[in-house]
C-alpha cells in the first residue's frame, strides 16, 4: 500500500487504528477457515459509522477495493483481503444503541457480538434468536452478511427473518437506509437482498433486529439410536407429524465420541450410532403435549432411550456438547475438513448411507453433526495433513460428498456462505445465465466491483463453465463450523 493512502486513512481513523506492519497484517490473514490465507494490504479499524463511510469514499476515489471483517469466524474465507485491498475491521463498532422492549427491537452496531446482544436483552425477557454455534464470538454484522443460521433457526428462521432494517454504506461511500422498524415499507425486500450478500453490496453500519420473547417452557430431549438411518427417519417422522421443534440436531458416533472425550462432555451415550437432540418450546401445556408425542415417535422409530431435560442447567449441558462439537473434534486429529451442504429432508437417510459408503471407500474418519431438521449437513473429515497420502483421499471424499448432495437436489452451502472457498462449486448448481444475473445484481450495488472482489460469484461466469463442471474438483476446506 502506498504511503499517501496510509496517510489519508490515518487522517480518518487516527494513526493507531491503521495497521500495516507485517506482524499486524499476519494476524488478519485468515478467518475461521485456516486453509485459506492472504495478507491484506492494510487493515483499518474505524471507530464510527461515519469513519466507515469516509474510508469507503476515499477508496472509491482512488479505486482501491475493500473487504469488511467482523470477528473473523467465517468458514468460507469471506473476510480475507488481497494485498491490493483494504481490510475494514468493524470490531470497534460494538455498541448496542437502543433496546425497545415494547416493540421488541434492538438497534446495534455491526461489531456487536451475537451472544452479547442476547445477554443485554435478557433482563426484558427477550432474546435474539439466530444462534450460530459461534455465537460467543461472531458479530451481528458477520451474521447479516452470511445470513447465519443456528440450531434454533428451524422453528424461528435464520438471520434474514430477524433483521428489519439496515443502514448500509454503499461501495461509493454513500449511505442508505433499508427497511424500517416494522419491516419493508414498500416495494422489493431490499433488506432481504442485503442479508446474505457476503460483503458484496457494501458494509452494514447499523442493524435493527427483531427480538423474541423467551419461551415460557422449554424441553430438551436426547434420543439415541443404533443406526443412523433410524435416527434420520425419526427426524422426518417428527416433521411429518406437523411438529416444528425449536431445534432438531443430530450427531453420529464419531462426533459423540469426540465430545465425550472433551471438557464439554455432556453425557451422550458413546455406544449409540446416532443421537438426536430435540428441543420443544412454547406454552407449558402445548410443550407437555408435544413432548409426549415426540417421545412416542422417537420410541416407535427405534430410539433405545429418550432422556428429557427441563432445568436450565441440564439443558445447557446437553447443548454445550453440541455447540462445541467442532472444537472437540480438533482433539482427534489436527485437521478437520468441514463440509456445509443442504439436502431435502426426505433425502437424509439415503445421503447418510452414501456418506458412510464414501467413508469406507476412502478409509477416512468422517463424523457428522448437523441441523437435521432443515437438512443442513456438516460432514467433517478428521485428518492429519502431515500425512501427505491422506490429503488426496480427503479431497476426493469431499468432492464425492458434495456431488452426492447436489445430485439429490441439494445445495453447496447451508449457512457458511460461498466466500472464496466454494467459488468453484457455484457452476455445479447455477447455470451461466443465473450466474450472470447474480453478477448484474452485484453491479447494481457496486458498479466498480470494489466491495469484497473476487468472491461469491465467479467472475468468469460464461457458458464454458457448465461444460467443465464435471472435471472440476471442489477445494478442500478445513477448520470447523
Amino acid at each position: 500500500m502506498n504511503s499517501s493512502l496510509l496517510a489519508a486513512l490515518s487522517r480518518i481513523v487516527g494513526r493507531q487504528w491503521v495497521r500495516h506492519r507485517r506482524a499486524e497484517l499476519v494476524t488478519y490473514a485468515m478467518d475461521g477457515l485456516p486453509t485459506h490465507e492472504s495478507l491484506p494490504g492494510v487493515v483499518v479499524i474505524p471507530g464510527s459509522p461515519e469513519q466507515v463511510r469516509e474510508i469507503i469514499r476515499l477508496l472509491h476515489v482512488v479505486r482501491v477495493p475493500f473487504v469488511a471483517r467482523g470477528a473473523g469466524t467465517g468458514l468460507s474465507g469471506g473476510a480475507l483481503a488481497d494485498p491490493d485491498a483494504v481490510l475494514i475491521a468493524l470490531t470497534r463498532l460494538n455498541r448496542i444503541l437502543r433496546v425497545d422492549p415494547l416493540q421488541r427491537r434492538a438497534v446495534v452496531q455491526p461489531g456487536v457480538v451475537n451472544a452479547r446482544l442476547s445477554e443485554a436483552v435478557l433482563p426484558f425477557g427477550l432474546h435474539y434468536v439466530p444462534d450460530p454455534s459461534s455465537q460467543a464470538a461472531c458479530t451481528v454484522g458477520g451474521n447479516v452478511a452470511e445470513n447465519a443460521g443456528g440450531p434454533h433457526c428451524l422453528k424461528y428462521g435464520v438471520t434474514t427473518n430477524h433483521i428489519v432494517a439496515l443502514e448500509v454504506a454503499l461501495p461509493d461511500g454513500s449511505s442508505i437506509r433499508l427497511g424500517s422498524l416494522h419491516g419493508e415499507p414498500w416495494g422489493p425486500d431490499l433488506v432481504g437482498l442485503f442479508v446474505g450478500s457476503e460483503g458484496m453490496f457494501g458494509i452494514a453500519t447499523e442493524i435493527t433486529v427483531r427480538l423474541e420473547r423467551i419461551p415460557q417452557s422449554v424441553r430438551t430431549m436426547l434420543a439415541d439410536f443404533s443406526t443412523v438411518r433410524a435416527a434420520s427417519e425419526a427426524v422426518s417422522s417428527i416433521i411429518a407429524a406437523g411438529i416444528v421443534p425449536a431445534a432438531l440436531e443430530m450427531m453420529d458416533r464419531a462426533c459423540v465420541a469426540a465430545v465425550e472425550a472433551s471438557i464439554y462432555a455432556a453425557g451422550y451415550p458413546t455406544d449409540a450410532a446416532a443421537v438426536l437432540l430435540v428441543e420443544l418450546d412454547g406454552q407449558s401445556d402445548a410443550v407437555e403435549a408435544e413432548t409426549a408425542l415426540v417421545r412416542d415417535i422417537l420410541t416407535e422409530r427405534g430410539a433405545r432411550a429418550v432422556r428429557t431435560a427441563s432445568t436450565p442447567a441440564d439443558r445447557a449441558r446437553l447443548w454445550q456438547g453440541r455447540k462445541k462439537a467442532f472444537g472437540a473434534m480438533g482433539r482427534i486429529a489436527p485437521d478437520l475438513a468441514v463440509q456445509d451442504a443442504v439436502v431435502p429432508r426426505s433425502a437424509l437417510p439415503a445421503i447418510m448411507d452414501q456418506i458412510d459408503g464414501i467413508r469406507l471407500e476412502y478409509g477416512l474418519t468422517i463424523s457428522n453433526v448437523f441441523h437435521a431438521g432443515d437438512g443442513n449437513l456438516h460432514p467433517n473429515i478428521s485428518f492429519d495433513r502431515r500425512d501427505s497420502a491422506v490429503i488426496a483421499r480427503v479431497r476426493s471424499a469431499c468432492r464425492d460428498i458434495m456431488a452426492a448432495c447436489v445430485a439429490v437436489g441439494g445445495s453447496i452451502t447451508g449457512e457458511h456462505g460461498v466466500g472464496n472457498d466454494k467459488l468453484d462449486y457455484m457452476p455445479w448448481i447455477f447455470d451461466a445465465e443465473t450466474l450472470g444475473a447474480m453478477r448484474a445484481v452485484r453491479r447494481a450495488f457496486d458498479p466498480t466491483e470494489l466491495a469484497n472482489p473476487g468472491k461469491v460469484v465467479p467472475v468468469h461466469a460464461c457458458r464454458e463453465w457448465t461444460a467443465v463442471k464435471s472435471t472440476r474438483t471442489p477445494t478442500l476446506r478445513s477448520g470447523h463450523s
Partner: protein
Amino acid sequence: MSSGPYAALDPCVHCGFCLPACPTYLVTADEGHSPRGRIVLMRALERGEMSGHDAALVEYLDACLGCRGCEPVCPSGVGYGRGLEAAREQLLSQRGLSPLARSVLGVFRYRALWRSVFALARGLRATRLPSLLSGPGRMRFGMGMLAASAEMRERVEWSARQRGSGTAGHELGSRDDLAADQTRRPAAPPTVALFRGCVMDLLFSHVHAATRRTLEVNGYRVLDLPDQMCCGALHEHAGDRESARALASANVEALAGRADFVVVNSAGCGALLKDYGHLVGTPESSTLAASVRDVSELLAEKGPRPGAPLDIDVAYDAPCHLQHAQRVHEAPLAMLRAIPALRLQLLPGSDRCCGSAGIYSVLRPRMARKVLESKIADVEAASPRPDLVVTGNPGCIMQIGAGLRAAKLPVRVAHPVELLDLSYQNAGFYEVKGE
C-alpha cells in the same frame, strides 16, 4: 505442526472462541491483541518466519497479560500458557529485557534487595500518606496500590461494628500468636509449610498471619521454614527462565520434604510453585510441586469450620493465576460461604483479569489501566454495591484497590482469608484458653 516447546499451540484451529475472553482484545478490538492473533505470531516466530526483533510482533506479544483467560474457553484444548512461555524465552534470548524490566526483576532476585525495597514501602505506608494521596494519575495510582496493600482492618470502618464484644483485645499478627483451639486438632495434624514469598512477606504479613491462624483452627500445623526466596514467577513470565529456575531451585531446597503441604496465599506464586516440576525438572521439584496448595484449597478441604457472622456484601474476584493457571474455582467460594450471614456476589467479569499481571502494570501502565477500567465499572454498577472485593493475589488486591480509590468508590479490597480470620476472631477462636 511441532513437537517442540510450541507443541501446545498445535490444536489451534483458528475458530475465534477465545476472542471474547481476552481482556486485551476486549479493550482494543484488534486481532493482534487477541489469543488467536498472538498464536499466529508465535507460530511465525517458531518457524523463523518472523524475528524477535520485529517491533510489531514484540509489541503484541508483550501486551499479553499472561492471564490465560483464553485457555478454559478453548474447545480444542490449546495450551496457550505453555506457548507463551516458549515465545517469551525465545524473545528474551533474541533481544534481551527492557532496562525497566531488567531493574525490576533484578530486585526480586536478591532477598536483601527486595526486603529493603518493601521495608521502605511499608514505612511509607505506615505514614498514611499513600492513602491520602491515592488517586487517578500515574503517581497517585501507585500510592493507591500501596494503600490498598494494608491490612483490611485498618481500612474498613465496618470491621469495628462486626466485632463481637470482648474479643477485640489481643495483639494479632505476630508469628508466635498461634493459640488456636488445641482440642480440635487430630492426633497427628497435617503439617503445612507457609510459602513466604517476597511482596507477601513484607507488605502482606497480615495475610500470612491470617493464613496461619485460620489453618491452625482447621487442624493444620503451620511451619515456618527459613531460606526461602521469591518464587520466580515474575522472571518466568518475562521469559527469564534462568533466574526463575535459580530461584525455584533455592525454594525446592528450602521446602522439599519438610511438610505434608506447602501453602501459598498468593495465586501468582502458587501457580508457579505448582509448576516447579516442569521448570526445574528434578524428582524433588515434582514432588514438592505436587504438595503445593492454595490456602483456600486446604481450608475448603476441612469445610472450613464456620466462624461468627459477618453481615456484609462481598464480591469475589477470581485471580487469573488461581482460576486459569491452577484451575481452582470452588475452594475460595466454599471458604467464604463458611462465614455466616456474609452475602457473596460474583460480579460480571469476576473471572476477567484486572490488569495487574505481575509487573505488567508497571511495564505497561496504559493497557493495564484500560483493562482495569471495566472491572471498576462492574463494581460501580453492582447492586447491592459490595462493601468489599476479595481476591487472593497481592497484585490484584493492589491493582483493584487503587482503581477503586481512583474512582472514589467506597469499596475496599482484601484477601479472602482475612475475612475468615475476622470471622474466627469474632467467634473467639483465638482467645487463649483459660483466659
